[in-house]
């Protein structure tokens, strides 16, 4: 089989992974190739997704039977496998032409988890031996030895394991060959290693070990879990495993299966709302429990989660833009990270007018109902119904999937109050995350 054929098959079968970020790595040096801290998009595919990395599988010859997966052994489809040398050379060739930031390497599980992961590690070892200093994201293969995980983390920028199904029950039903333990084990192990190696007082900085951290992906809409349980799981993953990102992937029915919903279109709007809620947790100081509670287990499809929260919590408003602390400003619909920082900065130099607030980038169409400024309160006092209608008017239509990287990664240079992420990373691997 020629290289073109392989690339088509192994690119096609890797594309369902939502992650393509190349951000957050200080890199490791090399004779060519460099990581960009904010990440970089190189092109956008016809579905509007940013393409940052050469995203391929090592092989799609998978011996497992995950019901939702195109590569499952159950499916009848063309199969292929790269050799480490082929894939290394292809990555370098693409990188030198500035098509990509580096490599995103995942794989089906052929022969054994160890054999699969060893091939992947060998590919990256070859790349680094060539002097490649660019970005590499590798999937940990559930069931592979820890020695292989260590080797991989020492070579790669980011590691990830896709949990895919947000509950133990769904995993049992739809991914019969993989246990929740096998999935979480590598994640917990790598998290623990990253944590242990982070000692700012160490005289010798240890070699970079997955410097861009770990991420995972959850499929949305294949199984009955509520948005609330998905958000709570994400929050737990951020806290316990210090994950850099949790990606959501709207379920795309690629294979028919009696246990999977027979939908035609992936639930893109739901996915988008989850990303917005995730964003609120990571950069706006919201907890999962604030965004959704028992009475509201699903995100409002019509309103973005911040507006929905504000409507349910009138007691926090109006916020006085002239005096409110950053945390309170950030909770105002229409004020984002950038406009909040601008407001803080601008009000140091004199009394703020409403016009100034607008000039700082605030979206007044939404913010006016929640703020006061020098005693002026443009929209305060509107009835709840008017308010909802007004906010709906300003809500955007179905947003782009591509917002994943461009909108949802923090703008470069912005100093965000990170969530209380890394206080307690498990040393011994426990399973604090209940799936």
């Amino acid at each position: 089989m020629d290289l073109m054929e392989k690339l088509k098959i192994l690119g096609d079968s890797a594309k369902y992974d939502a992650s393509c970020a190349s951000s957050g790595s200080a890199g490791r040096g090399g004779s060519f190739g460099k990581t960009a801290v904010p990440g970089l998009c190189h092109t956008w595919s016809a579905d509007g997704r940013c393409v940052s990395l050469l995203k391929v599988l090592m092989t799609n010859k998978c011996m497992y039977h995950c019901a939702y997966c195109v590569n499952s052994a159950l499916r009848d489809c063309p199969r292929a496998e790269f050799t480490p040398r082929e894939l290394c050379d292809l990555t370098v060739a693409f990188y030198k032409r500035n098509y990509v930031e580096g490599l995103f390497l995942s794989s089906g599980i052929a022969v054994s988890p160890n054999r699969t992961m060893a091939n992947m590690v060998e590919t990256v070892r070859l790349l680094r031996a060539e002097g490649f200093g660019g970005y590499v994201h590798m999937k940990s293969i559930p069931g592979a030895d820890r020695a292989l995980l260590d080797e991989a983390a020492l070579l790669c920028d980011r590691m990830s394991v896709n949990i895919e199904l947000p509950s133990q029950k769904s995993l049992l039903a739809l991914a019969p060959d993989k246990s929740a333990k096998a999935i979480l084990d590598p994640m917990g192990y790598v998290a623990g290693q990253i944590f242990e190696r982070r000692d700012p007082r160490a005289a010798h900085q240890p070699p970079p070990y997955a410097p861009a951290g770990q991420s995972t992906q959850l499929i949305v809409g294949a199984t009955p879990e509520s948005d609330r349980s998905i958000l709570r799981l994400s929050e737990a993953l951020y806290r316990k495993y210090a994950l850099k990102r949790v990606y959501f992937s709207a379920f795309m029915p690629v294979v028919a299966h009696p246990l999977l919903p027979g939908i035609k279109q992936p639930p893109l709007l739901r996915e988008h709302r989850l990303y917005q809620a995730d964003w609120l947790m990571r950069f706006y100081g919201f907890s999962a429990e604030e965004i959704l509670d028992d009475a509201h287990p699903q995100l409002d499809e019509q309103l973005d989660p911040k507006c929905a929260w504000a409507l349910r919590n009138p007691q926090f408003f109006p916020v006085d833009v002239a005096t409110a602390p950053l945390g309170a400003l950030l909770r105002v619909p229409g004020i984002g990270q950038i406009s909040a920082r601008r407001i803080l900065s601008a009000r140091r130099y004199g009394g703020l007018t409403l016009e100034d607030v607008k000039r700082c980038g605030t979206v007044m169409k939404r913010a006016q109902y929640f703020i006061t400024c020098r005693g002026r309160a443009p929209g305060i006092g509107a009835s709840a119904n008017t308010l909802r209608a007004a906010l709906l008017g300003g809500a955007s239509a179905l947003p782009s999937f591509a917002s994943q990287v461009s909108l949802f990664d923090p703008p470069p240079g912005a100093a965000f109050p990170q969530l209380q992420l890394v206080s307690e990373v498990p040393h011994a691997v426990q399973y604090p995350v209940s799936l």
Partner: protein
Amino acid sequence: MLSSILYLCDPTPEGLFTVMHHAWHSDDAVMGIVSSQPAQIDLFTRVVPITSDARAAQEVMTLLQKKLGMGSVRNMALCWLSELPGCGRNILDYAELGLRYGRRLDGMEANPVVRALHAKVSRVTFEVHRLSGLLRFRSAQNGYCATVEPDHNILSLLAPVFVPRMGECRWCIHDTRRGIWAVYDKELFYTDTAPEFALARVDPIEKLWKEYYDTIAIEGRFNPDCQKRLMPRRYWKNLVEDPQGAAAKYLRDYHAAT
């Protein structure tokens, strides 16, 4: 004579700071600064060409740096590289404010002059970021060669991005709009003539990339509007892949399947 002055200088930061030196030492009313002869001027405007002078420029930069800080000087230079209408006047106003408020200048986010200048700076840095991704090197005789046509005069900001990325091979970037080249051959320099290695040749890797690109859109997520919004059409012609073709192919496959 009752006229105001429009300074004409070269499009580099050095040109800009030389002009500021002149403006500060003259009593005339300054209308603005431009880097190309304006198509139309009114009766009361006098165009005064200024030749760049490294010493004068340095003097101004040192002073501004002392009073306003390096960040503001950088902002002025970036605003000038934007080549946007009114950028010269904007810089003069910003500098004047800066001499009054010193290092507080960039914190004055609500001030219209500061906001306007910051907005121009963002457009420049955003285009550098965007083109760092969208630029395509094509295999040449003995190195790599890229063509860009940026809105703003960013070659001097874009080329350094590729120095650590490309390693020791030879490469060049051609800004076709401005007729300038950035060339890397052991070191980076700028010139207005094409380097001799810049002859394109047939490259089988391009075909692999095109095929890969056509493969990776997910069924059910087709969204060419979004694709266009994030990657404006004016950048397409220097790509290797074909966004329009990929969208058309997607639709063909889709109709064939349903």
